[in-house]
């Protein structure tokens, strides 16, 4: 009995995932296409910017400016891409993402502003800047060479999957297997100890926010490529959605725990659940309430899991 409970606690998210999937599959006529939609198209977008949030959360902070960073960088880049300077445009987009991340990081480490309010303030500033920059314009009808990034597929699998899996693998490698990643975790768990062990914690945190910015602009770029339009209000709900996915995935706000792997599960739960509600024909009005419940329940289960793990170790 105890063993079953332990198993359930350790793998409850996977169990939940399959439960949701089987419900939604049983009511749809084309479950395969449905799963394909979710995994190949819907999840990758959310995943990439959620990774950014996850990394920020691992350092013990959070990044509420993801959406506006995505909007600003893609809108700026779109001016170039529309003139068919695709590579330059992409480079500019990612650079702007990194630059805005740098600003966040500097505010947090050097000016010592709490990450919550720092990234929230930055969100306003950047969003304002992109509105001013676009002043009501939209940029659309990009060339196919650019759109193929998000639209194309290889061996029947969407490019989005390749891109997001590649990003996932790189991030997993960097954050699980390298000295840099290890130090990020240590810094998140206890910044002071890490600094007293000779880690340049400020630099690490800045780099993480830069990566987070780059991830935000990457996902923004993919949206632009997929939907063929760059506009100023892209990503208004990125921040809160990414936070929800990260929390459902089980990355703790205390920092130093969890990881992008968890967030994959968190994103899948979110996407599957949203889809499940849709195919079950549940009114959209219920969505918010259901999400709130899922976050509470997963946080409580996560806590139970921690207690159980501690209990086992004693």
């Amino acid at each position, binding site marked *: 009995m105890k063993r079953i409970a332990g198993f359930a606690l350790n793998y409850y998210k996977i169990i939940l995932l399959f439960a949701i999937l089987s419900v939604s599959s049983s009511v*749809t*006529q*084309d479950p395969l*296409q*449905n799963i394909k*939609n979710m995994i190949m*198209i*819907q999840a990758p*977008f959310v995943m990439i910017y959620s990774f950014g949030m996850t990394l920020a959360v691992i350092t013990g902070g959070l990044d509420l400016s993801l959406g506006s960073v995505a909007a600003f960088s893609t809108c700026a880049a779109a001016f170039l891409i529309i003139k068919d300077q695709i590579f330059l445009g992409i480079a500019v987009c990612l650079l702007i993402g990194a630059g805005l991340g740098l600003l966040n990081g500097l505010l947090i480490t050097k000016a010592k502003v709490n990450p919550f309010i720092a990234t929230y303030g930055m969100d306003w500033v950047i969003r304002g800047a992109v*509105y001013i920059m676009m*002043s*009501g*314009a*939209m940029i*659309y*009808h990009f060339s196919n060479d650019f759109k193929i990034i998000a639209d194309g597929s290889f061996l029947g699998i969407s490019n989005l999957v390749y891109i997001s899996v590649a990003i996932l693998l790189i991030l997993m490698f960097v954050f699980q297997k390298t000295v840099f990643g290890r130090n990020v975790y240590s810094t998140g768990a206890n910044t002071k100890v890490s600094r007293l062990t000779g880690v340049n914690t400020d630099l690490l945190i800045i780099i993480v926010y830069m990566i987070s910015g780059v991830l935000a602009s990457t996902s923004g770029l993919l*949206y632009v490529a*997929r*939907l*063929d*339009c760059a*506009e*100023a*209000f*892209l990503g*208004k*709900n990125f921040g809160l959605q990414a936070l929800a996915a990260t929390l459902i995935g089980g990355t703790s706000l205390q920092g130093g725990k969890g990881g992008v792997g968890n967030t994959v599960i968190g994103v899948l739960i979110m996407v599957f659940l*949203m*889809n499940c509600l*849709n*195919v079950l*024909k549940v*009114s*959209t*009005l219920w*969505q918010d309430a259901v999400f709130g419940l899922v976050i509470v329940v997963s946080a409580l289960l996560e806590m139970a899991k921690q207690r159980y793990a501690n209990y086992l170790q004693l």
Partner: protein
Amino acid sequence: MKKAFTVFLVVLFSISVFSVSAAPYPGAVGKKATLILKDLTNPVWIQAAEGAKAAAKDFGMQIEVVAPIVSNNNDEQIQLVQQAIAKRKDIMILTPADSKGIVPAVTELNKAKIPVINLNTKINNESGRANSETFVVADNITCATLCATELARLANGSGEAIILQGPSGGQVTIDLTKGAEDTFAKYPGIKLVDKKEAKFDRATGYKVTQDMLITYPNLKIIFSCNDEMALGAVKAVEEVGKLGKIFIGGIDGNKDAMASIKEGKLNTTVFKNFWLQAYTAVEAAAKFLDGQKLPALIPVDLGIVTKENVEKYLAM
């Protein structure tokens, strides 16, 4: 020197006299007006601001165009109304984000004796406390009716339909949904199977449509509360190869929506002509200030854009 100055003054005077005499509504010249919009970050509303400014220039009025920071926020609109009263504006052109919630602010305008020109969305005046001089009609219920009728025509009056909505609880969503629902109800063959929130956002519209295509394989009509979501839906429908089988309609008349119609992807949209709306409203304000009587309703030509007439709208 003195002479030169006199000449200068005379020239200046004659210019001003000339310009006044050229103005169609002399009573409006130099008057201060405020136009409150629902939003000033969205392209279509920025067009409206441009229209209003053009009109103000034509009629020699001073106009200030404002909007809430958070789009469609009623409370901020109330604050903007109060600011306009504080600035003692001569006339107010108001586009309420919430037709019920704006009522107390309009009451205040009435008390301050600032005439109100109602634009776009009707102020709910059931209580009789929110009087406006005229209503420049480009309201969403009419838009929704136009679009839904066109979609129903395309679908030969039968089939399953869904509505993609803006943020739940917002006035725009409520009105558009009502217009579409009422219209579809007139066709016994059309079954409205679902309404889904897609936040006025292209990406969300795309994602929700994917789910809807799975849930309702026989879907025939997608009514979208704005062009953004409609274009997201087009993308989703295109990917499953059902373009032409499913009829998609949007609202607003964005440039890229019309481009999409031209390509034969999006089926229809309602050209709300925000520029003209605002221009008409400011003109109505000028007429009122000039002492002319205004009709209760001033319709603005809302065009239903289809593949056949899209060239005309694109040229505008």
